[in-house]
């Protein structure tokens, strides 16, 4: 089981990256473990509810969320691997083999990311286990099976995309639509996620998984490693720059092209599927219109912060970037808000304020602060739909 220990070790590394300060990481982990122990203890001693009152709906909701989060993280990990396949070179050289190697590369994000919701789910699962052990066991096994099949399907799909369009395009596609993968996964496995009876529905899946997964996964993982290992001559090139002009539009087009084209399509698809979600989607999209271009153009500066710290004209450059890109994107977002939310003045004001605040938030140099700020401003934008009607 050394590969499993390696996966846990990698997950710990991922946590270290997420919370670099050891004391904070340990304090958080300690508090988390204590709370989890307390909840689990409580789940084992509380009087059992009536069988009818057992809220399997809530539980399956949490279960679905956990799966979505896990698969979202897997999609993210997958897109990172496809974008930077050198991370897999060590795996390719190691005697672990493709099946374990690819799992090992994907495991950290999965383990570290799904931990909070798993912890939340565990006390509920314990209550269910006391009252309906077969259901609980069925749900746990189904979770693993769905995740395993989901991963397999995702990796197989990536293999196909890489084979057809090349690695660079596959990475761009994953970056653009990777976020939809968990949604697709949950929709695909929807009947299984809603476990209302003791594991009757997924019986076939549970029986097939131990038989088929060990046969299929090594092939799919092997093909994945081979596909990413193949040398690919990128066709990235640019025209002569306009000297004295920063060329941000061109850089943006180069890095965002596919995503920019696909985002409105995705938005329209979701809006058509769920018309009620339109105001929230619109609010969120307007914020993204402001944040994405700035974030994209500032990303190389955050990766090499010394450049702007050294450059004598960095302040002027930054101001120009903010006024041209941030200001331009803000103007587009406000114009769109005005066109699509005409006469909803209070929503327009709240949305405009959130969009305007998104610009300085994008300039925060600390990644964690910036991430928290962007999340908060997105939540504010979504909350602004309270003024929609």
């Amino acid at each position: 089981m050394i590969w499993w220990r390696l996966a846990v070790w990698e997950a710990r590394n991922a946590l270290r990256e997420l919370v670099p300060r050891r004391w904070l990481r340990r304090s958080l982990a300690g508090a988390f473990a204590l709370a989890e122990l307390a909840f689990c203890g409580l789940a084992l001693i509380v009087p059992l509810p009536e069988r009818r009152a057992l809220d399997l709906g809530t539980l399956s909701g949490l279960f679905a969320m956990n799966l979505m989060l896990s698969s979202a993280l897997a999609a993210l990990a997958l897109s990172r691997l496809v974008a930077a396949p050198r991370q897999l070179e060590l795996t390719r050289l190691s005697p672990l083999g493709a099946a374990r190697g690819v799992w090992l590369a994907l495991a950290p994000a999965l383990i570290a990311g799904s931990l909070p919701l798993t912890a939340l789910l565990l006390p509920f699962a314990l209550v269910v286990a006391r009252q309906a052990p077969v259901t609980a066991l069925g749900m746990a096994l189904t979770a693993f099976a769905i995740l395993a099949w989901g991963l397999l399907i995702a990796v197989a799909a990536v293999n196909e995309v890489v084979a057809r369009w090349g690695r660079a395009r596959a990475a761009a596609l994953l970056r653009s639509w990777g976020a939809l993968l968990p949604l697709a996964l949950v929709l695909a496995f929807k009947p299984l996620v809603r476990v209302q009876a003791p594991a009757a529905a997924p019986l076939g899946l549970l029986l097939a998984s131990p038989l088929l997964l060990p046969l299929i996964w090594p092939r799919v993982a092997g093909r994945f490693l081979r596909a990413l290992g193949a040398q690919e001559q990128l066709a990235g090139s640019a025209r002569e720059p306009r000297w004295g002009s920063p060329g941000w539009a061109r850089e943006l087009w180069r890095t965002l092209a596919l995503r920019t084209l696909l985002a409105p399509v995705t938005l329209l698809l979701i809006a058509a599927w769920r018309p009620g979600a339109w105001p929230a989607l619109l609010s969120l999209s307007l914020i993204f219109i402001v944040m994405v271009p700035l974030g994209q153009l500032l990303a190389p500066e955050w990766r090499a912060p010394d450049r702007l710290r050294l450059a004598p004209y960095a302040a002027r450059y930054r101001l120009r970037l903010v006024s041209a890109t941030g200001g331009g994107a803000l103007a587009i977002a406000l114009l769109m808000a005005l066109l699509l939310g005409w006469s909803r003045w209070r929503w327009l004001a709240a949305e405009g304020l959130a969009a305007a605040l998104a610009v300085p938030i994008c300039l925060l140099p600390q990644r964690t602060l910036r991430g928290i700020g962007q999340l908060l401003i997105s939540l504010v934008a979504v909350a602004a739909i309270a003024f929609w009607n």
Partner: protein
Amino acid sequence: MTSSGGIEVQHVSFQYARDVDVLAGATLRVQPGELVGVLGLNGAGKTTLFRLIAGLLEPRAGSITVAGFSLPRERRRASERLGWVPDEPLLYPKLSALENLNRFALLWGVPAEPAKRRSQAWLEATELWPDRHRLVEEYSRGMRQRLAIGCALLHEPSVLVMDEPFNGLDIQSALWLRELLRQRAAAGVALLVSSHQPEALDAIVDRLALLDRGRIQSTLSRAELLASGGTEQVFRASQAHPVAPEP
């Protein structure tokens, strides 16, 4: 403005963590037209010293002047005259070579026309011209290094600080870089260069500074260096018989 030209590092100390001196009273002077090499083991404090000179770090004690401007007070004016080549190139991977040079010209205040002219000359001299439109993410280590040096020289700095500039260069490019550094020194530029390649330092330096555990242990003139048998022999001797740091 405290003195003219070059680099002056006076009794500079620096700590990343409390009680761990990365630099402990380091003193070094590089005159205009002089090429000084810094030799030291990994962890001796070379990169920290270079980052202090670039104004990316602030010393805990001591003073630093670059091109006559005191750091950190006159950092911006010093930056205008400083060319900095770090061990990892500061290039934009999603831009082409020409776009990178254009972007660096903007950041260092070089007008469009001279920026274009110098960029073309640089790319032709470094044989990067045929690849000028390719994105830098596709470049080899050596190509990136050549471009990074070009970006650092675009504003024609009077002080040049290069941390491991020979890394990743093939023999032809390394020989060409040696020649270039000597030319720049002859033109009056003050150069501070670190390298783990003894023969490269032997070939170019006017003086060699030995950095050990945060202190400049000794500096040798070119004549002293050659008389001692070159950088490699000097290094071996310093390891066998450590000398007291220079006052």
